[in-house]
């Protein structure tokens, strides 16, 4: 592995920081276009009701209202992430399925006029019975939310490897527990917004998104406009965390309004609308049955997991599967059965989330600790024993290449003096560990790969063009850093054009943890092709072999005779002169089994590689108030190699808030179909004073195929932090959690139920 890298691996200031610290970075709600109108959406007040009629004519009579639309202005196309989940019309014409669903909209000269217009729209509803609990929803006789899905079962993922029942019967120790978790809110700081502008036959859109190409494609289908005429443009994004991957009703609303009015339209959701009417996170009920040998080896797992999906499919099978996969990619399960059910309820739509699956994952880890303890093993022992290693296959037949799991366990354990402290019995203190693996990419058909093209401009500066997306994690800066390394020019010489569907080529987007492994790999490949051309001309001009040339600080020079050098700008000009400007394309397509299908064929290589991580949480439990404090949190993450260690740390630290402290503070609260905390006061996003002291450890397993050995930058912490906390709680109290978040009232209940049972 080459380790005299010049800039990759260094803590660089991110390329996007300057604009953000000066307030000049533009987000969708900051945009102003000439003649722009303000849009507002009329939303369903019912959790479930037939739409009898929608009359927008009253709105159009209000002076200043320039357009008013409903589902009847759309084209009867239903969208879905998969061909078999096409259930979302965006603006329904048959019935409404959740409180807050988009029903109609107006565009007007200002917000007040738009609100006035909305108040004049007449919608006639016939309320229907609604169902809010996923277990109730699956029962016969429950209200049918979609005709096509019997018993409201959206997706059933069934995986069966080995002989689970036999192995369970033979196991030395068997345990079954059920864990629940309230669904979370993404609570990204930027409320959803869309600007749409239709002119001259082209529809331009700006919105925070995780993948512009799938957006444009979806809108092209929904609006029956050719794909080349739908252009999703680059705009800064205020956080996504998985909640901005799919086309949104707001996108269709804004598009219809701009087409109808002939003027640009801006739709900005309030915080409340962002919570009720854009994506939410699944509530989960997970039943985990585990069989272990006397020596702590896991011999069988039997899972039943119910995901409360809300009113539409969204990512459907993906959300129904991921928590299982990140776990089976971490541990050896010779026999495993998984039945995952995504169920419809009359609540907001649940999507994929960076921290998805906390009931299942934290439950598995905490139960494993309980069982290991009974067998005389500690959490480190049992994880080292069952953790996967490089070269092994997961239960569903993915091969693990680079694997730093063991290192993350050992380093996190040593840093926290884990083994000693776990054994020590301090009544109100506990320490716990959580492990997980993360697939770097999923099978997404032809959209699983990325392509980049590069051009060298005549001053020797570089333009990189890639579909890669940044939602704040630092992907844009990462690829500039990679290009800088390969081309020998400083980051400030590199212009990035990204995430614009007219100009940039396909990329998986900021989705499925593929930005480094796939997106940056494509950028690296393209830059290497450019590098070859630069070196070829330099070799010719300098009279030295190509193998003797390196690029550094904007110069191509002979390694053996450094006086022989020429600026890259001269090489570029020479190339122009020859009529062969220096441009190149590079692509990366991960080694995935494309026959794999989430439901019909759930086995085969899932991703090109996997990252691994271990978190350790230290907790203090107040037995009188049930309050949990987390004084210290340590996270170790195998990212292959950090391209910008500061960015990887940032991801890990942010995850400690979003998945760690969130374990004790975050959860959506419902009264039937009404979300009771759709705001940032009663939905408890942890603050600086709630955070622990943090230690981050970056482990480099040097992936053979990742760019400079890199994999993904920190998501393991988002899927193991809650496990560490749950396990620490169990260590402190001897009790398994039942339901997350572990707010003080729930903790006190558990402690009281358990009194006397020691």
């Amino acid at each position, binding site marked *: 592995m080459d380790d005299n890298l010049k800039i990759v691996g260094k803590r660089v200031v991110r390329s996007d920081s300057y604009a953000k610290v000066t*307030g000049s970075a533009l987000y969708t709600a900051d945009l102003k276009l000439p003649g722009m109108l303000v849009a507002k959406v009329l939303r369903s007040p019912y959790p479930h009701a037939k739409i009898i009629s929608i009359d927008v004519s009253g709105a159009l009579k209000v002076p200043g209202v320039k357009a008013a639309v409903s589902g009847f202005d759309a084209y009867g196309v239903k969208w879905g992430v998969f061909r078999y989940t096409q259930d979302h019309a965006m603006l329904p014409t048959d019935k409404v399925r959740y409180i807050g669903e988009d029903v109609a909209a107006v565009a007007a000269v200002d917000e007040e006029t738009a609100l006035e217009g909305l108040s004049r729209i007449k919608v006639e509803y016939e309320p229907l019975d609604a169902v809010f609990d996923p277990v109730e929803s699956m029962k016969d006789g429950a209200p049918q939310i979609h005709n096509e899905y019997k018993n409201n079962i959206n997706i059933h993922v069934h995986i069966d490897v080995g002989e689970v029942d036999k192995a369970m019967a033979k196991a030395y120790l068997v345990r079954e527990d059920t864990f629940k978790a309230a669904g979370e809110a993404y609570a*990204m700081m930027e409320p959803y917004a869309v600007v749409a502008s239709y002119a001259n036959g082209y529809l331009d859109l700006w919105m925070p998104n995780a993948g512009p190409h799938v957006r444009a494609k979806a809108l092209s289908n929904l609006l029956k406009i050719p794909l080349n005429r739908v252009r999703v443009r680059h705009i800064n994004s205020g956080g996504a965390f998985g909640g901005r991957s799919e086309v949104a009703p707001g996108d269709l609303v804004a598009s219809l309004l701009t087409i109808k009015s002939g003027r640009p339209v801006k739709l900005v959701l309030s915080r409340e609308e962002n919570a009720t009417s854009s994506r939410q996170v699944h509530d989960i009920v997970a039943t985990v049955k585990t069989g272990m040998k006397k020596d702590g080896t896991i011999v069988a797992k039997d899972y039943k997991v119910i995901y409360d999906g809300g009113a539409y499919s969204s990512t459907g099978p993906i959300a129904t599967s991921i928590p299982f996969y990140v776990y089976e990619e971490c541990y050896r399960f010779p026999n495993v059965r998984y039945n995952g059910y995504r169920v419809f309820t009359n609540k907001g739509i649940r999507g994929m989330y960076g921290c998805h699956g906390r009931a299942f994952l934290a439950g598995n880890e905490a139960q494993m600790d309980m069982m290991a303890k009974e067998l005389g093993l500690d959490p480190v022992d049992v994880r080292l024993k069952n953790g996967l290693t490089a070269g092994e296959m997961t239960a569903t037949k993915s091969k693990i290449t680079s694997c730093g799991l063991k290192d993350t366990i050992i380093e996190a354990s040593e840093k926290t003096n884990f083994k000693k402290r776990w054994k020590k019995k301090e009544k109100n203190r506990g320490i716990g560990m959580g492990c997980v693996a993360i697939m770097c990419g999923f099978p997404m058909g032809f959209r699983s790969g990325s392509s980049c093209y590069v051009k060298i401009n005549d001053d020797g500066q570089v333009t990189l063009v890639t579909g890669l997306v940044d939602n704040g994690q630092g992907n844009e800066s990462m690829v500039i850093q990679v290009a800088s390394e390969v081309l020998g020019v400083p980051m400030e010489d590199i212009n990035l054009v990204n995430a614009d569907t007219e100009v940039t080529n396909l990329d998986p987007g900021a989705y499925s943890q593929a930005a480094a492994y796939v997106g940056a790999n494509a950028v690296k490949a393209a830059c290497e092709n450019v590098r070859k051309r630069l070196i070829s001309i330099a070799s010719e001009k300098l009279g030295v072999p190509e193998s003797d040339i390196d690029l550094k600080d904007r110069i191509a020079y002979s390694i053996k005779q450094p006086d022989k050098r020429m600026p890259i700008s001269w090489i570029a000009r020479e190339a122009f002169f020859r009529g062969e400007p220096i441009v190149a394309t590079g692509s990366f397509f991960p080694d995935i089994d494309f026959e794999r299908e989430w439901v019909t064929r759930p086995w085969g290589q899932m991703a090109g590689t996997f990252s691994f991580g271990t978190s350790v949480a230290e907790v203090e439990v107040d037995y009188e108030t049930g309050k949990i404090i987390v004084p210290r949190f340590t996270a170790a993450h195998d990212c292959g190699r950090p391209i910008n260690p500061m960015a990887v740390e940032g991801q*890990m630290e*942010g995850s400690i808030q979003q998945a760690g402290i969130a374990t004790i503070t975050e959860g959506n609260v419902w009264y039937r179909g009404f979300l009771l905390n759709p705001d*940032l006061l009663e939905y408890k996003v942890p603050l600086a004073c709630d955070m622990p002291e943090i230690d981050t450890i970056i482990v480099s397993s040097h992936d053979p195929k990742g760019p400079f050995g890199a994999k993904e930058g920190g998501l393991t912490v988002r899927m193991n932090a809650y496990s560490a906390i749950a396990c620490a709680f169990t260590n402190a109290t001897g009790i398994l959690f039942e339901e997350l978040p572990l707010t003080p009232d729930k903790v006190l209940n558990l402690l009281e139920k358990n009194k006397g049972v020691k």
Partner: protein
Amino acid sequence: MKTVKVTINVNNEKIKLQVKPYETLLETLRERLALTGAKEACSLGSCGSCTVLLNGTPVRSCLILTPEVDGASITTIEGLKEDGKLHPLQEAFMEKGAVQCGFCTSGMIMTAKGLLNRNKKPSRAEIIKSISSNICRCTGYKKIVEAVEEASKKMA
């Protein structure tokens, strides 16, 4: 409804405006003055993304009616630079990696500026207490605290 005349000093520039009586300072800054650095993330005063300085004190501009600040001095993120140079807080946020998606950043920096205005050498605990007025969803706050520490050291 009649508009209200106000004169406000924004980033060292005296500005005369006719505003709606029910217009918030955040709206005025973003819609009339094109100062879109302050963000509307919740509109109800729960998150701090709209924070600006009012006579040197950090305030949530989404909760202030513009007529209330007639005659006052407002500093926004756009006004932090001096003679084209970044303020040490801005530099430190960049250098310490305290910026990810950036949506909370202006509010966070202005809260920190407010702190440094009244306390030149804040302790770590004082920094944490101060920035616990602002929500960040991306960073976990660690690098933000480090950036404020760094800036206060540089400014000393």
